[in-house]
């Protein structure tokens, strides 16, 4: 058994544990690959055993023993309650309003929680061509709420997105309603430094929670807009031994290159 004394908690581990805590039991969760999938599986293995994991490959209720590398590893289908075609997962299940939580990452986020996963630089002549929207544009619109996980830096927390791939709160409060989006939008943004939540009035992302060892100062330095910090800034509880053990066991199941 690995204990905290044996290995310090990494920033990614902290972020994953906090993201897993954001999922309550019996939540139907649409999961992207990478940190979101790790966090959702950690929740399922710890405090939320009846959380339902839905993957965009069409697997509903997957309970993988090994962490999948892709969104459609065979184990996701083998351990699922149902496997449906891809047009159906997006039309009947996501657009149909059956998803409680969408878990998203991105390359850039702005102060109103809009996301870029398309390009860095100009679209026609990009500095970096990113993978693209994939499932995210409709997950961001349709899931009852969205949890965003990303590392915080001036490159990723930007004043202005290079491309708007998915909508958070648009350009102003009320935009989601105007655009006909049924979901509430991003209710929490989890980073390696802390947790941001939208201001109830302005929807501007505000630092409301800070992880052990991080500070509001560092969070401000790593944000490309003047970051608002809540007066009653909370401190994140350290990962428990159980959370860390389950997380490390889970991550060890990912195949290493041979």
């Amino acid at each position, binding site marked *: 058994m690995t204990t905290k004394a044996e290995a310090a908690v990494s920033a990614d581990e902290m972020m994953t544990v906090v993201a897993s805590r954001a999922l309550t039991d019996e939540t139907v969760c649409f999961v992207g*690959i*990478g940190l979101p999938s790790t966090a959702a599986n950690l929740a399922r293995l710890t405090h939320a055993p009846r959380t339902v994991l839905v993957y*965009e*490959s*069409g*697997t509903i209720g997957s309970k993988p023993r090994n962490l*999948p*590398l*892709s*969104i*459609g*590893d*065979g184990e*996701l*289908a083998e351990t699922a309650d149902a*496997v449906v*075609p*891809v*047009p159906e997962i*997006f*039309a009947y299940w*996501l*657009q149909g309003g059956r998803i409680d939580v969408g878990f998203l990452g991105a390359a850039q986020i702005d102060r109103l929680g809009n996301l870029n996963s*398309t390009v860095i630089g100009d*679209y026609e*002549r*990009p*500095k*970096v*061509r*990113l*993978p*693209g*929207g*994939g*499932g*995210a*544009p*409709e997950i961001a*619109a*349709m899931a009852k709420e969205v949890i965003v996980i990303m590392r915080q830096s001036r490159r990723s927390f930007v004043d202005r997105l290079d*491309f*708007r*791939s*998915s*909508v958070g709160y*648009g350009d102003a409060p009320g*935009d989601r309603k105007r*655009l*006909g*989006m049924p979901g509430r939008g991003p209710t929490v943004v989890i980073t390696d430094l802390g947790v941001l939540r939208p201001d109830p009035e302005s929807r501007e992302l505000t630092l409301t929670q800070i992880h052990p060892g991080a500070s509001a100062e560092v969070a401000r330095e790593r944000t490309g807009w003047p970051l608002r910090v809540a007066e009653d800034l909370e401190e994140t509880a350290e990962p428990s031994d159980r959370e860390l053990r389950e997380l490390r066991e889970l991550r060890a199941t990912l*195949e*290493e*290159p*041979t």
Partner: protein
Amino acid sequence: MAELLALDEAVAELVHDGDSVALEGFTHLIPFAAGQEIIRQGRRDLTLIRMTPDLIYDQMIGAGCARKLIFSWGGNPGVGSLRRLRDAVEHDWPAPLELEEHSHAGMAARYAAGASNLPFGTLRGYVGTELMERSSETIAEIKCPFTGEALTAVRALRPDVGIVHAQRADREGNVQLWGIIGVQKEIVLASARSLVTVEEIVDELEPRPGAIVLPTWAVGAVAEAPHGAHPSYAHDYYDRDNGFYQRWDEISADRDSFQAWIEEHVLRTAGVT
């Protein structure tokens, strides 16, 4: 009735320079053997259509088969970038690549519309995103004729050729597949011509839980291609080769190592992946 052909014959007969071609398979059952046969036969100026270009289109783009890409998510799942796709978009190597970019939900609706012989599919999607303007030739706002609410229309996809992989077919050319079934059925039915590669051809298709059958008269050609989905997988035949997906990051990192790999593993082999 589907013709039973050898893979090289099938590709020679069905895929021509300048065609729009969709090789589908959502993570599972990706038709790598067919894609590599297209590379071997030196096809050019293809419009490649696929939700997730994956390694197969990274290879085809790097090998110079493509003029245009229609897609929704172009990464190496769980690993990072598709480096040949990026080199084409960022540096026009080996040739400029035109992009038509959508979301997964939109691509799925476009395939379903194509299979249904409709000119467009409808969804609640894209609103507020820049994809809407960027792909305005294939995305448009429409009004519901019954309720008046604003919805999004996406142009149907009707590829010249649809290619998928499946677990097996019988000697009549009836095709059976199971596990993650993605958009396999939609592609075969939306395309003017179709090719299904299979792990094996059997005397009889025994029923399988969750399996779908594409009847022989709805399929253009069937070609046996054992291991033809590697490094993706064929449920109940072999697992996804995650190690290869991770190694591809290095193989594809520069033009020389990519070309050396294509030379050794595609151009100098015959239908073996």
